[in-house]
């Protein structure tokens, strides 16, 4: 039988606010356990949550970016369950009235664009962490993460393969970073995914029974976990078994999913509106204010880069992969006054390679857009050759001075004095009578030898085109 896979993703994005969603404690990652949690995060008696407006703003930004309905009235609810790293015994989340309603995200798979529906996105607080190692059989609780704002983005079951799931996740990952609402750091858990996976005979209308795979923290694992789960379900069904609705955990080491809890064991979360928080009212003025400040979205930027800079698809896609890289490119283009292609080549080529090698992000680049512009301008006006430029680039990477200073200091300026070039050419011709003979008898290949000799003599500081022209002239004899 032919099977169709049906996937819906729930993605938890950690919002990049400075303080927590319901308290003033900082959200910084990696601090000593329990040093970034205040009385509210610890769930001490009598304390009360106060909503961080920045988290609301970020949720609305996201909603607008996916053209979703922004709820004028949304409500926080308590989701009740006991767990040692859940200090209050309930999580403040949203249930019946999420802040972001139906929207969509377009993905590209194998050259085809597909629209994936987003059911909703709601605000909630993260829990702390239970640490099971290093405590000699006991469990440690770190509540630094407790109260960190999350936006849970729930997709429609529109995804039909692991590949589409990855494309959706990547697209969302790109978007939230573009919007500046999430740092996208998957190792630190800033962007996490749960996948609802089911299969059904191709052509069947109703959905099969789904399993939820929890906590998949990389693009690679999403693909593997889904493929594995699909295989498991098909095998089960084809051997006459039934899929049970349950929550499964993906084990990346063993590359398998295993049951966590069944539907029967599932908590009854007993959601009810949190009486400590007022409903969130979002008016038109607030929305207009956010809309005005909304950054250019990836898709729009791609189209504009193609149109404005006449760049090839590959360069555009690299340059627009992050807002910071795109901004860097545009700054270099503007400051250097060079052709877009030259700017793009250096940024996607030498600069990206150097950053990769050093493990740095564009935001940490040692060569500012200002300094790279200085270099490109000198290439453009023929002050230095492309070859010398690589040397200057190296020096820029190591120092903090400008390209002009480096060129002057190292004497890398191209020799444009034609008299000096002619003198050297004449000397080379005089020193190599045999090669001159060969050239003049029609062996054009020898020409490269002369170019090489002249450039060597001039330590690369001559303009190769100029050298070619003059050599040809002199060799005529």
């Amino acid at each position: 039988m032919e099977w169709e896979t049906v996937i819906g993703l729930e993605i938890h994005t950690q919002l990049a606010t400075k303080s927590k969603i319901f308290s003033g404690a900082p959200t910084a990652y990696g601090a000593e356990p329990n040093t970034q949690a205040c009385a509210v995060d610890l769930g001490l008696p009598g304390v009360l949550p106060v909503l961080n407006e920045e988290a609301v703003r970020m949720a609305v930004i996201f909603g607008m970016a996916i053209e979703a309905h922004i709820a004028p009235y949304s409500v926080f609810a308590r989701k009740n369950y006991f767990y040692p790293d859940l200090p209050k015994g309930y999580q403040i989340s949203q249930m019946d009235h999420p802040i972001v309603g139906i929207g969509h995200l377009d993905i590209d798979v194998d050259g085809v664009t597909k629209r994936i529906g987003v059911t909703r996105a709601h605000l909630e607080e993260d829990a702390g962490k239970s640490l099971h190692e290093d405590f000699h059989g006991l469990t440690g609780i770190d509540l630094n993460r407790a109260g960190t704002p999350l936006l849970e983005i729930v997709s429609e079951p529109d995804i039909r393969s692991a590949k589409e799931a990855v494309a959706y996740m990547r697209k969302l990952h790109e978007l939230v970073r573009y919007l500046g609402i999430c740092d996208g750091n998957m190792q630190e858990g800033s962007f996490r995914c749960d996948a609802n996976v089911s299969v059904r005979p191709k052509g069947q209308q109703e959905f099969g029974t789904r399993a939820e795979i929890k906590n998949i923290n990389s693009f690679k694992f999403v693909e593997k976990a889904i493929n594995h789960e699909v295989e498991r379900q098909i095998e089960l069904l084809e051997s006459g078994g039934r899929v049970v609705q349950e929550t499964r955990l993906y084990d990346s080491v063993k590359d398998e999913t295993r049951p966590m809890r069944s539907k029967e064991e599932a908590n009854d979360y007993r959601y009810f509106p949190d009486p400590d928080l007022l409903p969130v009212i979002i008016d038109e003025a607030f929305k207009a204010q956010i809309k005005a400040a909304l950054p250019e979205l990836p898709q729009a930027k791609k189209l504009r880069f193609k149109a404005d800079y006449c760049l090839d698809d590959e360069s555009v896609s690299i340059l627009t992969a992050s807002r910071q890289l795109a901004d860097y490119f545009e700054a270099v283009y503007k400051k250097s006054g060079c052709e877009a292609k030259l700017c793009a080549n250096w940024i996607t080529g030498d600069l990206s390679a150097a950053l990769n090698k050093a493990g740095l992000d564009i935001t940490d680049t040692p060569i500012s857009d200002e300094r790279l512009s200085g270099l490109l301008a000198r290439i453009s006006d023929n002050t230095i050759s492309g070859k010398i430029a690589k040397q200057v680039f190296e020096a820029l990477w190591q120092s903090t001075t400008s390209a002009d200073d480096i060129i002057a200091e190292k004497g890398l300026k191209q020799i444009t004095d034609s008299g000096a070039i002619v003198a050297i050419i004449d000397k080379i011709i005089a020193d190599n009578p045999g090669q001159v003979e060969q050239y003049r008898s029609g062996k054009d290949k020898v020409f490269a030898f002369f170019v090489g000799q002249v450039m060597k003599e001039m330590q690369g500081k001559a303009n190769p085109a100029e050298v070619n022209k003059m050599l040809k002239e002199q060799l005529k004899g």
Partner: protein
Amino acid sequence: MHTKTLTELSLGLRSGAFSSVELTQTFLQRISQHQDLNAYITVTEELALQQALAADVRLANGTADCLTGIPIAQKDIFCTLDVKTTCGSKMLDNFIAPYNATVVEKLNQSGAVMLGKLNMDEFAMGSSNETSYYGAVKNPWNITTVPGGSSGGSAAAVAARLAVCATGTDTGGSIRQPAALCGITGLKPTYGRVSRYGMIAYASSLDQGGPMTRSAEDAAIVLQTMAGFDAKDSTSVDLPVPDYSAGLNNSLAGLKIGLPKEFFSDGLNSDVAAVLATAIDEYRKLGAEIIDISMPNLKLAIPAYYVIAPAECSANLSRFDGVRYGYRCENPKDLTDLYTRSRGEGFGKEVKRRILMGTYALSTGYYDAYYLKAQKIRRLISDDFKNALAKVDVIMGPVTPTTAFGIGEKMDDPIEMYLSDIYTIAINLAGVPAMSIPAGFVAGMPVGLQLIGSYFAEDRLLNIAHQYQQVTDWHQQTPNGFE
């Protein structure tokens, strides 16, 4: 000194007739003499004397306000920095908060002296103060009877002159009912008028702190300090706080008093009804007009309350899990055992009963039938109050169906106990302010008159109460043995 009102004591302190240290020592001595009442859970003698010394400095250098140097006491539901806050429960017998409740902070700032923390029903769940882990509080008017609850320690302490005034909290009558049973003045402000920050939550949408004092005049002074917007409590309301003392002497001529017929039906003890009738007559003499009204949904208040309050409490009390603070059972064998035994051993019977009721009401399949329906009823009840208060200035009625009942009398019958709050609960559901003021006695036991006003009309209620207290002396009576 202890017989004087807050207003008199404040004048005495500022005129230098006595010092705050002297006054504080007097009260500390009385507390120690009357330990048998069991009004206090913690007496903060050392802290009180320190605060009194500081208050005397302020009194001397002219930076004192009305509460500077006045010995008060806090219901043990308000978190106090470095002083144990138990909420009347074994669960928090070892709990010391690293912060002050906003109410405590404000009273500290005003220079009030804290004598200690007052006994209460466990987590404010009870109407007799008998559910306290620290034992029942006795009513100073008759020590075989209850003082009411949950602010039973507060009411008993003020009635017995073991504090000049006290804080209380009221979720379904917990300020007004004990105030009535102990013959003092108690005010439950409009929901959102007083910050709930640091006040341990029972039912968050109903809880409200307020003053418990000897007179309306005193209540105006204490509320002045307690009230106001607090950025730490999202449900506190950002409205200016009026001068509560300014209008106390306004005339009541033309005042429209509404008497809901539902408040004066079968359940009300006839002797209590007679006392209330006399009190209403007094108001008539003061120029008020009496209007019979009806509030048909009042009868639904108790069932709605006993869904909403337990539902909220079932979540509010989940944090007491033995993991981070509070009571933890000995040698738990695993996580479930840690939870079940810490909570099983740390909570008393009534608290567990309400957690179970609330958990049930919120469960899948029951939510609509219980919680949602209760919320709809709540809306109907609020509408009843709004409609009534559009026609009259104040609604009056009983606070309790009877005077104080005997200790142990209702402990085996929770329904009977719940019904003792029949006249107070609807007010919390609506969120309007209400007071209980002493209106007379039946067989030597105090009877309270309830005054219910419009949202944020505390100043009007205080004026109405004060005018009555100008022509009666019920609020000046002191129980035998506590003069």
